[in-house]
């Protein structure tokens, strides 16, 4: 196996909760707790999990939009987790992000051309303004918009078109890795597939690597090569897409997959209903974080956190059953 493009080791983010008038930091929200994974060149790693499980926080930490509490982020052999803003700036060209809400992620006071030009200006990529204009028009064409759109403002576009603008901005600096934080969940279903197909086309044409964060399992199945499942700040299972969807090992993944609707009313399927609510990350359960809702829970699950280990070939999970 080739060296990974991005390697994340024991990444943690604890948000302090301030209490009282003295701002004493007494408790921590464990948003991301000991997460490790790798992304290889040219692949798409899907990251799924329910709301608040820390998947977006993980994505933002990779870009250092949120400072990690602990752990390493190794991008192309360099640990970026401890770098200062100035040290990391040249590397930002290689890692770009697509945001969830295309209505909020574009500055309403800038034209589309200015928005897409921003990475080019910031990284000083074009000296000549005519060449930069050409590049902007080329980018608009790549995402299926027209060059005359560059003088318009974001509010003149539909959600799908805005997301295309967001994608064009992410592509502008010719990145290697794109972190897509729920890029289609704010869009209509009919538009979702267009944007997903566009992302796949671009990946093929431009040799991109994606970290695709989503909560929609069918979307993730469509676009990913490998999938990681997160629960309460931890990755509980990570493996190839086909393996995961055919043979999920972790009880949480099994429950999650049983909830995916099948567009055929005749098929009777066994739905695993999880009892109770997701525990608070402020006060996560001891042992395995999932034991409060797991029907296979044993005594050991309540005491010792399961190790994240390779159970089958390239199939990692954290569960005492295996």
């Amino acid at each position: 196996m080739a060296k990974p493009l991005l390697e994340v080791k024991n990444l943690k983010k604890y948000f302090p909760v301030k209490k009282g008038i003295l701002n004493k930091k007494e408790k921590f929200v464990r948003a991301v707790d000991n997460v490790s994974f790798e992304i290889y060149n040219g692949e798409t790693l899907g990251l799924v999990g329910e709301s608040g499980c820390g998947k977006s926080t993980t994505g933002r930490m990779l870009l250092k939009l949120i400072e990690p509490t602990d752990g390493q982020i190794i991008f192309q052999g360099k640990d970026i987790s401890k770098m200062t803003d100035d040290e990391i700036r040249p590397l930002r060209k290689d890692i770009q992000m697509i945001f969830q809400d295309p209505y909020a992620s574009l500055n309403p006071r800038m034209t589309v051309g200015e928005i897409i030009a921003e990475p080019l200006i910031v990284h000083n990529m074009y000296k000549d303004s005519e060449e930069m204009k050409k590049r902007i028009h080329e980018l608009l064409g790549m995402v299926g918009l027209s060059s005359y759109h560059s003088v318009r403002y974001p509010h003149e576009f539909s959600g799908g078109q805005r997301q295309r603008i967001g994608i064009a901005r992410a592509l502008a600096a010719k990145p290697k890795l794109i972190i897509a934080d729920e890029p289609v969940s704010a869009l209509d279903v009919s538009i979702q597939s267009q944007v997903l197909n566009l992302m796949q086309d671009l990946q093929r044409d431009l040799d991109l690597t994606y970290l695709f964060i989503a909560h929609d399992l069918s979307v993730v199945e469509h676009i990913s090569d490998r999938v990681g499942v997160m629960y309460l700040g931890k990755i509980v299972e990570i493996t190839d897409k086909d393996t995961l969807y055919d043979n999920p090992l972790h009880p949480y993944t099994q429950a999650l997959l049983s909830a995916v609707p099948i567009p055929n009313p005749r098929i009777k399927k066994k739905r695993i209903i999880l009892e109770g609510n997701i525990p608070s990350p402020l006060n996560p359960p001891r042992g395995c974080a999932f034991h409060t809702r797991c029907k296979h829970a044993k005594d050991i699950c309540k005491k010792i956190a399961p190790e994240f280990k390779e159970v089958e070939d390239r199939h990692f999970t954290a569960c005492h059953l295996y």
Partner: protein
Amino acid sequence: MSQRTVREVAKPNENEKMEDIRTPFSEFWRKFKKQKTAIVAALFICLFFITAIIGPYIVPYDVAEPDYDHILEGPSSKHWFGTDAYGRDIFSRVIVGARISLAVGLSSVLVGAILGSILGLISGYYGGWIDNVIMRIADVLFAFPGIILAIGIIAILGPGLYNVVFAVAIFSTPMFARIVRGSTLAIKETVYVEAAKSIGTKDKRIMFKHILPGTFSGIIVYFTMRIGTSILTASSLSFLGMGAQPPTPEWGAMLSSGRDYLGVASHITFFPGMAIFVTVLAFNLLGDGLRDALDPKIDN
């Protein structure tokens, strides 16, 4: 196959006309032109600007030359606003005074707005102790009534128009700092600022390119209203003898010199007083109109 579908659907409608583009400015203009009072105020302010620029070249009389044959005369066809205790034409003096008032009002607010905006931007964007220091200083300045603060500053610097500009600028600064800080706090949390950070945009560019334009609507409204207040404060200071010195035809100084003749020749104080009143009112009404036109929540 999938590629083709994507391209087709995204194809823009060729019939879209360029005229239909709704820029932020056209949106503003659409709402602004519905407000009759603000339009009238804006026209008056335009007139005021023109007067300020060409006034000194068109006035019928010299504003400083005494004419002892015509002292304390009431309004007539020769002297529209009458004459003062030295026989000087009050109409000419009010016209020329427009330039002084405008220069003082505009420059002091401009200095205050620039200073305040930068401080507010820094304060809101960086937060922490920088924010604390700047905002606590602003609080101290806020604690003084404006005129007292201005008197204090002039007591230190000495009387004169330039010092009035400086004093008024100082006490305009904290309000601008607060307005800009408030907007900055809101805008810096937006996703598009986060997006700019993820691209690698430097703090300075984020502050001036992404955040500052978002605070402009608040600044413009307050700026307009503040000009009125500044003209008033500058006149008050001149009235108290701390600003423009006689024989400068400053409105406040004219009021002051006419005070002794209030019983016998009230026109000496009436016309400069009206000039101050109408000008301040016009700036406030324009400010109100701008606020309504720039507020996205008000739409009719």
